[in-house]
């Protein structure tokens, strides 16, 4: 049997490269335009967020590289290893997504995430991030003050505290199959802490849509508190009269308090908080009171015993 040979193609039948490329470009443009009409402007990790204002909240310290900010995470919903979130958060669906804002407010509302993104102008803020494990980063977050949202729902006189609740879905969040913490992840703030302009409702970092492993699609960032207070992948914001009990307070009441303000003078019972390792640096640096935000937030805690209210 004769081996089959591919018949040669006449050179006249071959599409010239320039034409081929032009057609590809046209298809991309047409497809892109079609998709853009269907989708919101920026929804997926890696997309650039539009119209970001510069803000006055900028720490004049070297930024922690994007790679480290997005590869070294504590997000127990995806596992307790630092590299678990980057490896496993990809499957989390961030659309559709709603945030239920209710409790002691006049205008309780279920916000769609794309509505929240347009609620107030987005601004970039470069904040220090201090983990309770004594390491730290400097991150350019994108978002707006939580106060912008709070004003719109009109808290009543009974709204003394705010409870933040993360997504609970073990199918998407494999770490929730383990009882390492009580799920859903809960955190709490005093209403004046929640209203403080530094409290950032965050939807991005490095000018891009928040990567899943950093708490997409929406999270809180509280730069003067240990990182675990900065609740990720939020689905609920509830205004309450009594001080909420957070997941970490339940997990270790002697080790994790309600306030969790960064304080070099109050050690974690098992390790020192006097110093921290800035990611990327060799020598440890001294930890600053309220993580360097004492001028802005110090008055919130005036007269309080910070040893007792840790």
């Amino acid at each position: 049997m004769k081996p089959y040979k591919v018949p040669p193609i006449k050179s006249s039948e071959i599409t010239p490269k320039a034409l081929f490329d032009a057609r590809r470009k046209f298809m991309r443009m047409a497809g892109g335009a079609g998709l853009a009409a269907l989708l919101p402007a920026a929804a997926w990790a890696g997309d650039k967020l539009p119209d970001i204002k510069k803000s006055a909240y900028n720490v004049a310290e070297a930024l922690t590289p994007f790679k480290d900010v997005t590869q070294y995470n504590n997000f127990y919903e995806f596992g307790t290893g630092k590299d678990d979130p980057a490896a496993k958060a990809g499957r989390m669906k961030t659309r559709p997504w709603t945030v239920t804002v209710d409790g002691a407010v006049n205008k309780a509302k279920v916000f769609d995430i794309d509505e929240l993104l347009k609620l107030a102008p987005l601004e970039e803020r470069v904040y220090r991030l201090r983990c309770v494990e004594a390491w730290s980063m400097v991150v350019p977050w994108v978002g707006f003050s939580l106060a912008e949202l709070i004003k719109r729902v009109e808290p009543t006189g009974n709204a003394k505290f705010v409870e933040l609740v993360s997504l609970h879905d073990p199918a998407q969040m494999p770490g929730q199959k383990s009882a390492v913490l009580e799920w859903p992840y809960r955190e709490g703030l005093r209403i004046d802490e929640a209203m403080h302009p530094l409290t950032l409702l965050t939807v991005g970092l490095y000018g891009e849509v928040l990567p899943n492993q950093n708490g997409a699609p929406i999270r809180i960032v509280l730069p003067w508190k240990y990182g675990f207070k900065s609740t990720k992948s939020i689905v609920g914001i509830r205004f309450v009269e009594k001080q909420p009990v957070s997941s970490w307070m339940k997990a270790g009441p002697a080790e994790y308090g309600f306030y969790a303000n960064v304080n070099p003078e109050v050690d974690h019972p098992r390790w020192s908080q006097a110093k921290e390792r800035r990611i990327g640096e060799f020598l440890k640096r001294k930890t600053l009171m309220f993580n360097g935000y004492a001028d802005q937030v110090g008055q919130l805690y005036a007269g309080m015993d910070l040893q007792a209210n840790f």
Partner: protein
Amino acid sequence: MQVWIYRLIFKMATLKNLPNKTLAGVKAAVFVLGLIPVFKLAYGAYADSLGANPIEKITHVTGYWTLTFLLITLSATPLRRLTDWSWWIRLRRMLGLFAFFYGCLHFLAYLVLDQFFDWDSIAKDILKRPYITVGFPAFLLMIPLAITSNDAMMRRLGGKRWRLLHKLVYPCAIGGVVHYWWLVKKDLTNPIAFAVLLALLLSVRAGHWLVNAH
């Protein structure tokens, strides 16, 4: 090659003792295997692939292998009692020295990389941090064991005293596991695994001691 490996495994599983030549080969293989973690770390440091916090990574990996080699070392006696393999006991010295080797690297990682000779911080850690209060002496206990691990020291001490001294490996291993247990933030999976294995290894000894005492 495959046949050769099967033959070796079969030989090892059925023989009480291995011929000297085979034992030398097994020892060489264990020596090379034991160095893999440190070579991986060294390569990671060179290639900058130890992640965002390389100091933490080096400290954790060397600590993990210290405990792992301690447990493997402690498995020698129970394995001999349960299986009749006495050749395994002839690997024990090298395994114990690997535990000491990784323990030294772990301690050096803490001293040089983590604290950078900040003696004040180190002293406070030892006094105030329970996991270091128990981990530091556990490391110190390994030093006399490593020093007296050679044949000359065994002869000088005499078998009885040598065996008594080397019982220090028990508090050392317990201290190491407690050190790990107390330092993790919340997820106790790995410390529990080490604790269960250590409890198993110690209970085999306790059982043996009880049977012999009565």
